[in-house]
């Protein structure tokens, strides 16, 4: 597994050990890219800051909370409305963001008094909300404001409110990952254990590292609750503040994005003896094994098998319709942290795509171990990629599609590589059986877009095919497949609704009573007590 030398980075030798080609027969012990090191300035890296890692990625998905950033207004403005973490209470966390709006005088004379005024004002504007998170920024960290002291003061004066403080300024670490780390540990030490949660099932888990992007959490919650398992809290998508204060009462932590949330799981294991179970919510086989594993823990594997069978029967014919048409499509999986390993093997095995490259913006070496292991030979793995390297990679690897962020997606678009949004998704959710089919459909629509094909024609040089009025996706995708598959009536295209989530919110579930074991209906309200918080 030799290091991969990008031509564009020959002049910065320290980049060499950040990229590796997975060679035939080579193992993780032969080479592994470096990771989570300080960024080389001027490279045009794609990394964000530790403030956004804490506030934007992990804090803000909490749905019944006033999220204030203590600093100049830009940190708040810039991160606001750039993600799709929805909630079942009207998306208060997407719609409202709060900044203390630090000005020059505050920098000189301190901003603690002003912060206090801010906090009080915010609670006054939203009298039904009693929970708050306050995030430090570069500016408030450097002037040394004691945010915790202010929070304490307010809580003394307003006994019905609770405030969580996260001290994770933008510069705290090489990337957003520094912020994930800080908020994990801050939440654990400040908040966990301060609320005794209501337990209504014999089986209780925390669902950790899941942010409800386009409804991922809600689609997974459906399977978990159908097994009779109570999700005490989700860290942090679609979760209530108080539920997350009661995390210590779960029997198991089910961990999805280990990159952003392994720290709290590890600490909950050490301090409270709650085991950490890593799962995959993507891919039929990986998800089925994950559900089964959770069920084994509670001794309810037959309930899991019933769900797996039902969902597979419902959605597999749709997945296979796309899989037949996506064989050999080359993909770069270029997300932030966890999706390189969540997707690499399943997308190859179940949809037939060839993963030619994986990268991680803010992952650690552990993420690369997972990603490289799950890729096939020949894949190029890049840590902390920069703009020129990704262009060079796209020109040499010639992928048919890439999964990446919005802005790098625009770069890919220009060199005629279609992209799907790896962070926010195109038409998600992508988790769950239904989500995985939606993902396949989105890949199919991107790869076989007639408009995409038109982009390659140079009307000044090429022969223009004048006899055609249009082309369809099927006209491209079906030339490669046999008549047998083409005419297979068992297969069908995606039938998932535009938004499958609202229907899930109306479902009722039964849970075994923690004392008697008797299965009882638990009302929807218990899952989302404060609907209409605003």
């Amino acid at each position, binding site marked *: 597994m030799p290091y991969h030398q990008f031509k564009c980075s020959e002049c910065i030798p320290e980049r060499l050990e950040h990229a590796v080609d997975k060679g035939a027969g080579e193992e993780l*012990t032969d080479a*592994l890219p470096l990771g989570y090191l300080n960024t080389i300035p001027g490279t045009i890296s794609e990394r964000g800051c530790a403030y956004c890692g804490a506030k934007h990625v992990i804090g803000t998905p909490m749905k019944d909370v006033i999220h204030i950033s203590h600093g100049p207004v830009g940190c708040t403005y810039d991160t606001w409305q750039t993600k799709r973490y929805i909630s079942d209470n009207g998306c208060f966390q997407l719609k409202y963001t709060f900044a203390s709006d630090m000005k020059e005088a505050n920098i000189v004379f301190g901003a603690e008094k002003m912060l206090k005024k801010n906090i009080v004002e915010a609670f006054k504007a939203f009298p039904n909300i009693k929970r708050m998170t306050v995030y430090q920024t570069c500016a408030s960290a450097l002037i040394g404001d004691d945010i915790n002291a202010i929070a304490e003061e307010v809580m003394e004066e307003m006994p019905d409110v609770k405030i969580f403080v996260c001290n994770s300024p933008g510069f705290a670490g090489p990337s957003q990952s520094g912020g994930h780390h800080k908020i994990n540990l801050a939440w654990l030490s400040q908040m966990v254990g301060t609320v005794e949660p209501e337990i209504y099932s014999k089986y209780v888990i925390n669902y950790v590292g899941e942010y409800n992007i386009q409804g991922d959490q809600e689609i997974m919650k459906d399977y978990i609750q159908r097994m009779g398992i109570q999700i005490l809290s989700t860290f942090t998508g679609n979760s209530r503040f108080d539920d997350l204060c009661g995390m210590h009462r779960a029997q198991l932590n089910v961990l999805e994005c280990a990159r952003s949330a392994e720290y709290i799981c*590890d600490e909950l294991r050490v301090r409270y*003896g709650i*085991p950490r179970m890593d*799962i995959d919510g993507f891919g039929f086989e990986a998800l089925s094994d994950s559900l089964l*594993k959770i069920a*084994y823990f509670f001794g309810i594997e037959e309930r899991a098998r019933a769900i797996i069978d039902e969902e597979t029967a419902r959605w597999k014919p749709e997945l296979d319709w796309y899989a037949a048409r996506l064989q050999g499509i080359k993909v770069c999986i270029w997300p932030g942290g966890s999706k390189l390993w969540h997707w690499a093997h399943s997308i190859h095995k179940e949809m037939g795509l060839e993963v030619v490259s994986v990268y991680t913006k803010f992952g650690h070496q552990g993420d690369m*171990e*997972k990603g490289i292991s799950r890729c096939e030979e020949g894949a190029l793995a890049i840590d902390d990629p920069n703009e020129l390297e990704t262009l060079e990679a796209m020109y040499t690897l010639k992928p048919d599609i890439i999964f990446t962020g919005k802005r790098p997606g625009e770069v890919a678009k220009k060199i005629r590589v279609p992209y799907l949004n790896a962070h926010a998704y195109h038409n998600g959710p992508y988790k769950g059986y239904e989500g995985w089919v939606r993902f396949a459909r989105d890949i199919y629509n991107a790869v076989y877009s007639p408009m995409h094909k038109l982009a390659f024609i140079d009307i000044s040089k090429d022969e223009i095919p004048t006899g055609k009025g249009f082309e369809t996706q099927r006209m491209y995708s079906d030339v490669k497949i046999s008549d047998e598959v083409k005419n297979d009536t068992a297969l069908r295209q995606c039938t998932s609704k535009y938004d499958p989530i609202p229907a899930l919110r109306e479902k009722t579930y039964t849970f075994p009573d923690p004392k008697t074991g008797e299965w009882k209906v638990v009302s929807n309200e218990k899952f989302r007590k404060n609907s209409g918080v605003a």
Partner: protein
Amino acid sequence: MDETTAQEKMKQLEWYITKHCLWQYNSRGWDREIQNERILGKSKQLLCGENAREDDSNADRYYWSEAMTLVEAFKRYFPWLKTMKKEDIATVMQLLKEKMDYTMIKGSLNQELIKEKY
């Protein structure tokens, strides 16, 4: 069973874990040792028809759940396990444990493994 066969079978099992599992990747070396020890240990016990439960603690149930899922997948992927003798399975599983310890801990290039705190 000869050494070559044992190695070859071990490789198949290792391939499965490498591609599908996540439990071996905890972020600290000492963590990985426990994971390998407990999950592969229980998997071996299950494959050999031995008792794999120690107590009813959440921790033990967790390792057991991972092992149950792994063994089920092993059997799905590798039909030869059904006809293999128990002592041979034990041999292959021992090799697998050694290999996983090497890849994930002793031979690992992951510099984070030696960090003390999470």
